[in-house]
């Protein structure tokens, strides 16, 4: 659990973070989102004391971060940044094993842990262990960055626009991978991004920041329904808001059991989102879709009225 109480940071005359209070529950993904210069990165970096806060308190599991030695603190917190910051003179395996080595784990255990993590992130050991960072693609390098952050199995993971420099396809793939990882590992994650789609996709708790303050926070769906002001609304996409909301809901949550009627000809996987369902309907000019499971077996159906939130078709 991470708690911030009235945390303030000034750079000279500029107030980067202004009396900010925030609470991130254990196992929760908290996404800080806002335009550049809103203080979201500064907030993140104050948690592992890369930047020292001027006022207020930051607590980790109830203890102020200042009560820890900063080096010990950082070794307990995973940290991922946009440009990966991989050490160019070390192999992938050595990069991943960095924190365990700093913690003086025995050699064998480090080796095991590195292989485990590479498998977890879909990096075949044979192929990647001895490569150097410059031989990796952007997506591969960022996966190594995530693996490195997870190496010592920290409870907390800080991610500063980790996918910001990747192309859209790779970015989506990594977002999905991160969701799957989180479903298994249940880390407490603070994730900074300026990309609202990414924020909506990943967040358990969404925090919109502006000029060093929190404008609004809550579940993504709540923010979509009731944006606090025009700023949040525009950030959430203005007229595209409906689509963004639909993207948050799975088809399986809205579908009805198969009825007596004939199956609709167009099919959609049950884990697709409502926005994808809407897109299919628009494309094929139909009002009904057959929902199928992973083996392409029909498990239900979805009508346009149902999609829009109606009771039944």
């Amino acid at each position, binding site marked *: 659990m991470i708690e911030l109480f009235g945390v303030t940071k000034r750079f000279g005359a500029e107030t980067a973070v202004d009396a900010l209070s925030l609470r991130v529950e254990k196992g929760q993904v908290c996404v800080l989102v806002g335009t550049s210069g809103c203080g979201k990165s500064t907030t993140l970096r104050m948690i*592992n004391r*890369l930047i020292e806060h001027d006022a207020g308190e930051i607590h980790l599991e109830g203890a102020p971060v200042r009560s820890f030695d900063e*080096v*010990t*603190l*950082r*070794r*307990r*917190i995973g*940290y991922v*940044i*946009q*440009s*990966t*910051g*991989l*050490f*160019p*003179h070390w192999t992938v395996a050595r990069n991943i094993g*960095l*924190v365990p080595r*700093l913690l003086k784990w025995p050699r064998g255990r480090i080796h095991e842990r590195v292989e485990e993590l590479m498998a977890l992130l879909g990096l075949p050991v044979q192929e990647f262990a001895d490569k150097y960072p410059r031989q990796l693609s952007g997506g591969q390098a960022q996966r190594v*960055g995530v693996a*490195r*952050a997870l190496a010592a199995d920290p409870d907390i993971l*800080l991610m500063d626009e980790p996918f910001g420099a990747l192309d859209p396809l790779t970015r989506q793939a990594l977002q999905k991978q991160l969701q799957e990882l989180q479903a298994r590992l249940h880390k407490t994650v603070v994730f900074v991004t300026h990309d609202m789609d990414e924020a909506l996709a990943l967040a358990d708790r969404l925090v919109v920041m502006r000029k060093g303050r929190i404008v609004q926070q809550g579940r993504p769906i709540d923010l979509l329904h009731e944006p606090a002001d025009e700023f949040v609304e525009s950030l959430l996409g203005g007229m595209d808001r409906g689509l963004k909301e639909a993207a948050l809901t799975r088809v399986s949550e809205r579908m009805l059991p198969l009825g007596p009627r004939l199956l609709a000809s167009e099919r959609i996987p049950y884990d697709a989102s409502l926005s994808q369902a809407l897109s299919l309907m628009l494309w094929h000019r139909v009002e009904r879709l057959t929902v199928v499971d992973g083996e392409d077996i029909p498990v239900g159906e979805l009508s346009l009225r149902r999609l829009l939130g109606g009771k039944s078709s």
Partner: protein
Amino acid sequence: MSRQWLTVGSAALTPGLRHWLAPLVWLSLLVLFATGMAHLEGAFRWLEPDSREVIYRRAGFIALLGQHAMVVGIASLVAVVLGVGSAIAVTRPVGRDFLPLVSQLASIGQTFPPVAVLALAVPALGFGTLPIIVALLLYGLLPIVRNTLTGLDGIDPDVREAARGMGMTRGQLLRQVELPLAAPVILAGIRTSVTVNIATAALGATVGASNLGDPIIAGIINGNTAYIVQGALLIGLLALAVDSVFERLLRRG
């Protein structure tokens, strides 16, 4: 039997020794010429038919070479320690205030002619080996400081940020990340420093330090080209040997 030994020998040359082949060749040539210069009297006689004496004999070449190498060695060693040390010091939070001054000084100092530095060292320190060591040290310091600063400055700030974020101490960051990453540039600076100093040290002969510059000065004064060639040959071989060692180190890095 002997044939077999030969093949074993050449196999053993791979890969460790073979990489050091160039430095070894230059070094053995250097030692060979330093010890056996007198055997080349015929060649030098042809070069300088009119002189009574064609081999420099006022001091042994081995002794001169030893002096030369020692002076350059001491000066370079101290210059490396001071240069790398001060460049590291001014890039730490403690010494950061001094960074602008030191980097300006290092670039201004590059324009100082070695002769002038040497000449200024003599009034301060008198004649002999000490002023030449100090002059070489001061002169050799600058490329090392400048390159160490460049090397440390060239490190991606995100790598530093990540290292700190992972919980490396300042010492670990310096030893495991900053120095290894800056090493090629630092080494290039040391290389420049040492090779320039090997040539400059010859000027020490004019301030009473005895080294491989002696035969050259004697040759100029007596109009004896053979002496000059002997001095130049050994200095050149010394420079090539040292340079090839650095070449090797840089390629591995």
